[in-house]
């Protein structure tokens, strides 16, 4: 007799706990306004990242194709995983002095962990985080980028 009672209470308990759970899922079933799924490729235009979002490192250029990077290499020293290589060359300025200027600022996106140390330590604020996140490619070498544009020069007044 006892076992029958126990059996029935067990069934009752099981059904009750099931119904409690179903109540929650049922609520969301009849409230389509609470759908949280975002339709990613379709909503690309509306999808705005937060301004601090760290998608990649970029070097902003102004309209005259000028950047702020002096080629000092502090970002290269501070990068914990070697994803930045700064190649600088010696050039002769108008007044005949020799000066080092940036040749190529090579950035390995494939190795970057977005810790932000390069941007934080840059003395001339030449680097910035970009909001782009669609980076998937078929060949790995495409992930290595040169951040300064071809033919770009140093902005005036930046030391």
């Amino acid at each position, binding site marked *: 007799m006892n076992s029958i009672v126990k059996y029935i209470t067990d069934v009752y308990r099981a059904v009750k*706990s099931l119904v409690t*759970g179903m109540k*929650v899922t049922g609520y969301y079933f009849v409230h389509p306004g609470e759908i949280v799924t975002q339709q990613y490729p379709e909503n690309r235009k509306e999808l705005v990242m*937060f301004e601090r*979002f760290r998608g990649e490192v970029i070097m902003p250029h102004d309209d005259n194709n000028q950047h702020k990077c002096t080629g000092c290499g502090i970002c290269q020293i*501070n990068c*914990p*995983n070697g994803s930045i290589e700064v190649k600088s060359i010696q050039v002769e300025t108008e007044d005949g002095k020799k000066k080092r200027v940036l040749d190529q600022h090579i950035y390995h996106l494939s190795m970057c*962990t977005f*810790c932000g140390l390069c941007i934080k330590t840059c003395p001339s604020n030449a680097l910035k985080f970009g909001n782009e996140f669609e980076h998937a490619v078929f060949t790995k070498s495409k992930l290595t980028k040169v951040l300064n544009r071809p033919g770009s020069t140093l902005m005036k007044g930046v030391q």
Partner: protein
Amino acid sequence: MTELINVTEPDKLTDQPEDQDKLTEQLEEQEYIINMGPQHPSTHGVLRLVLSLKGEIVKNIQPHCGYIHRGIEKMCERLTYQQIIHLTDRLDYLSAHHNNEAVCLCVEKALEVEVPERVKYIRTIIDELGRLASHQLWWCSFGMDLGALTAFFYGLRDREKILDIFEETTGSRLLQSYNCPGGLMNDIHPNFQKRVKEFITYFRKKLPEYDELLTGNVILMERTKGVGFLSLEDAISYGVTGPSGRASGFACDVRKHHPYSAYDKAEFKEILYTTGDTFHRYKARIDEMWESMKILEQLIDNIPEGDYSAKMKPVLRLPEGEYYQRVESCRGEFGVYIISDGNKTPYRIKFRSPNFSNLSALNIIARNFKIADLIAIGGSLDLVIPDIDR
């Protein structure tokens, strides 16, 4: 993978029923060795467990780690203290901020730098948000281990809200790298306080749903109550900390006993249970979520004005000596032990990871329970494998 079963004198056994019985008896006496992992959905990563079974009963568990041993401690010996931060993120990726904080606090202690009050408050708030996110993820995966797929979707739905807060302020969803020795990378976003308060009101409504969905469920009760006991003595002896240890009655909350950052300014209860079974390990985490929300509510309106970072030199050289810092990460006590020889890189750095000790207790918790219970027990310990292997 089975071990070869060798029955003593198999040639003498015939087809006779009594001989067949003898064979069965001999086979039953032997232990059956199976491999679980390293690629198994319920080990939460690349943990490999070698189980000795007797029928369905687990007799012995030998964890084999190292499938994600990256040698982070060795790598840190060549990095400066600012650079170490980004590697500690990747130890226990669900409590990334806690790990960062431990290193930063240790470096600040060594340099005797007093960080602004504002930094302490913000660090504590992000700690607790991280704890909420981590426990939500644990809740999802624990439900999924036991076959409740709905939990997965509901838990991660709420977790995205926290990740949005993180992303707005720190710029990254999971591995924030928000701390730096001396303070924070940047100030909080102007929306931060508003969003956190919104989240608390939202989550206070949603957390009871978790209970309705899973905690009261008869299947969960049957699979967790009275399964996988850990006594208080064993919890202390095996160094099981965090919610897993507190479910056994081991008062090990670093936030309470060795307060750091702004934890001494907030009122909260240390969740303690005495049973130490799987259900109470589950319950301890659910209760911790409530406590985390309480801490958040107390601190969020009182963030003092000030700088977000103390003035630090660009190159940090720790004075010669040894420094230790304990913090409470989501899974237990995380510690950083730095031995410095006065250089800009540490001579030796050791991370005391909570999961490493928690895993060592798995053998005594799950022994003599069924193999199906091992999934529930492993899930309730909430192991993060990269933290074990480092």
